[in-house]
């Protein structure tokens, strides 16, 4: 028996090792891998995003028969928010005709950015990833519509400025100590000098995400006027609870657009009343397109979403947003190339030509869902603004108009960062824009 078992395991291992080739996806579909994470400490954000992303495409399949008559196949690959596993997923799926990657992790995006021009597959890091990819001339294959972390940060600072000025204020920056949280620091350092405020940084390691008392002890000592939160996953709910515990005024505690989620704040409940966060996609399921998602996908049991009340959550809608942009880019690529079935290279063109105007948003049933975005070759972020939302103890409520970023400050810095990124990479492919 023991021998048999041993032989059996050995055979299984061997079989698994030989697992190298994958069955090709049928010709006339769009294959979009979704590098999702439904396990680990970041699953709270990963699950709704992956659900929204897949559900919107499935809705298009069910309602319209796909995009331009071509169905979309979304295949998930579990990354656990781990860069190594993300690259493993990338390698496993790229050979199947992947059109675009949307890894929902800045760490994984950093790994994919240099691979994109070589494999000729665009990387769409929507509102995350390397801010410098917004410079289209230097990063032809990277896109971060609707806005970059750097632009977002300036919008948040503008909001703070509108609530009693920025000069001379003490700003705390609480961040997850990984690539994601470190990304806006260079800008923060420059802006603090330029705009005359001081910054205190509170890095939270992944292992300390749920044990932040030491950080908040420091906050109590430093007494910053405002705190900006660059958290993700289990870190957010802990931060809000800790802030409430030391009686930090929650309406002066602002999360970025990944730090204001339903999943995080529901566990905090009424304690978190007043907590602010940035957002760029609509809240709730009242949009006609989302009603269609409910009608064609969720109510028919074709979604992984646990309950239909979760449709319309902030991060669910974020997933929808990412799917909308990809769908629009596909449509635009179909139009410009005249082909029904496009490839990844055509889609890259689509990402530079689509026009998500006010009218178009209305047409696809998402009026007021987000700011209009006009894609261009030069600007891969679209310069979109953000609005502020506030937790009322039960739900997120929109409390401000769109706040546009300080493009005049951010753009030159992005260009500098992009130039620095490619400086030590001989053979990096750039493009010229008209």
């Amino acid at each position: 028996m023991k021998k048999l078992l041993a032989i059996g395991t050995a055979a299984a291992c061997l079989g698994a090792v030989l697992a190298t080739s994958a069955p090709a996806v049928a010709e006339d579909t769009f294959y979009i891998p979704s590098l999702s994470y439904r396990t680990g400490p970041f699953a709270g954000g990963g699950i709704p995003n992956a659900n929204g992303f897949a559900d919107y495409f499935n809705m298009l399949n069910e309602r319209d028969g796909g995009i331009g008559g071509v169905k979309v196949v979304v295949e998930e690959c579990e990354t656990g928010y781990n860069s190594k596993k993300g690259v493993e997923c990338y390698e496993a799926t790229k050979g199947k005709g992947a059109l675009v990657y949307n890894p929902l992790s800045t760490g994984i995006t950093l790994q994919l950015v240099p691979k994109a021009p070589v494999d000729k597959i665009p990387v769409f890091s929507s509102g995350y990833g390397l801010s410098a990819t917004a410079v289209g001339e230097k990063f032809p294959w990277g896109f971060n519509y609707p806005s970059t972390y750097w632009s977002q940060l300036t919008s948040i600072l503008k909001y703070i400025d509108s609530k009693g000025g920025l000069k001379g204020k003490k700003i705390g920056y609480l961040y997850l100590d990984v690539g994601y949280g470190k990304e806006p620091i260079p800008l923060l350092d420059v802006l603090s000098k330029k705009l005359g405020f001081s910054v205190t940084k509170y890095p939270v390691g992944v292992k300390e995400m749920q044990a932040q008392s030491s950080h908040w002890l420091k906050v109590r000592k430093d007494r910053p006027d405002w705190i900006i939160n660059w958290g993700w996953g289990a870190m957010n709910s802990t931060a809000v609870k800790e802030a409430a515990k030391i009686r930090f005024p929650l309406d002066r505690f602002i999360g970025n657009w990944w730090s204001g989620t339903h999943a995080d704040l529901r566990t905090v409940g009424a304690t978190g009343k007043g907590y602010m966060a940035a957002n760029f996609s609509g809240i709730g399921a009242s949009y006609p397109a989302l009603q269609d998602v409910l009608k064609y996908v969720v109510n028919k049991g074709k979604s992984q979403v646990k309950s239909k009340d979760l449709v319309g959550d902030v991060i669910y809608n974020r997933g929808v947003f990412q799917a909308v942009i990809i769908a629009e880019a596909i449509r635009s690529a179909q139009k410009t190339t005249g082909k029904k079935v496009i490839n990844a290279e055509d889609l890259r063109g689509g990402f530079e030509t689509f026009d998500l105007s006010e009218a178009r948003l209305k047409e696809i049933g998402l009026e007021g869902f987000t700011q209009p975005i006009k894609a261009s070759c030069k600007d891969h972020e679209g310069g979109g603004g953000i609005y502020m939302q506030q937790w009322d103890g039960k739900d997120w409520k929109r409390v401000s108009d769109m706040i546009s970023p300080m493009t005049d400050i951010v753009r030159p810095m992005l260009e500098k960062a992009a130039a620095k990124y490619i400086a030590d990479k001989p053979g990096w492919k750039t493009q010229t824009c008209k």
Partner: protein
Amino acid sequence: MFYRETGQFKTTYEADSAIFPILQDRIGIALMLAVAFVVIPLTGSDFFLNTMMIPFLIFALAAIGLNILTGYTGQISLGSGAFMGVGAYSCYKMASLFPDMNLIVLVLFSGFFSAAAGMIFGLPSLRIKGFYLVVTTLAAQFFLTWAFIRVAWLYNYNDSGAIDTLPRKAFGLWISGAEASPVTRYFVVLCIVIAMTWFASNLVRGRIGRSWMMIRDMDIAAELMGVRPLYAKISAFAVSSFYCGVAGSMMVFFWLGSAEVESFDENQSFLILFMVILGGLGSIMGSYMGAAFIVVLPVALRAAPEFFGITVNPTNMEHYTIMIIGALIIFFLIVEPHGLARLWQIAKEKLRTWPFPYA
């Protein structure tokens, strides 16, 4: 029947002290090299090379490094992840400072930096042993990862705080960066790992290796017989860290493409220690087996359902993988506490007497 050395006479001292004294072993190793150098590059897909073979070889090298320290010298260390990091960061620094140097030379040279770090953090081993040494090597782990985060000079003040591969050519081919093909990177890694394995297997059989094993088996007796603990222990730390350092810089330049501090944290150190324990303490062969078990098996398991045409929810598959690996670790450690290498040794003995149950 197999593995009978009957009739294989050794007529010279060289033949007697060869690495593989038995003909069957030589055939076996030649076959394995043929597979590694010819079959795999010809048939392996990008996925197979990138996510299984390259990390397997790199981690095998790191496991050999730790095996030298833990398996041969008996000093338990939890700093291997950090020593890999020292190699990676120093290689990155050198590659950006000397862009025209051959990257392979730099990768090998980066081992010296981590050897130096290993020697410094190995000093406490002269006074303390066992679990207490684990704590001091853990201190190395925490100190070095702290340095990788806080000393911005180490990552050239990159905005992301990560070190990313600098694309480099050698012999007219891209060997690092996104342009480098997986086959090229595989060959570079394979050559370095095989050369260093060969060096290590000779080292542990020689005078130095024997002094390490004497220290491991009984340090007082070794000291009385003229082995100097200072030299033996510190040289073991140096060689071990050298191997880990080279593995670390290969990890960044030939596998991952870019790395954050998380790639060198204590989890990494634990993983390498598990490879050594599972593979077999004091066995070069075991280091390879352990690395295959920890690195290749999970990837293979995750890819398995699709290969066999079964649809499994990727989230569930993730959980199954964790469960299967865990169960297999328990199974193998119950069946053979001395590791996979010992299993192989038993199999060899059995093959020797087969088909008779006794010799």
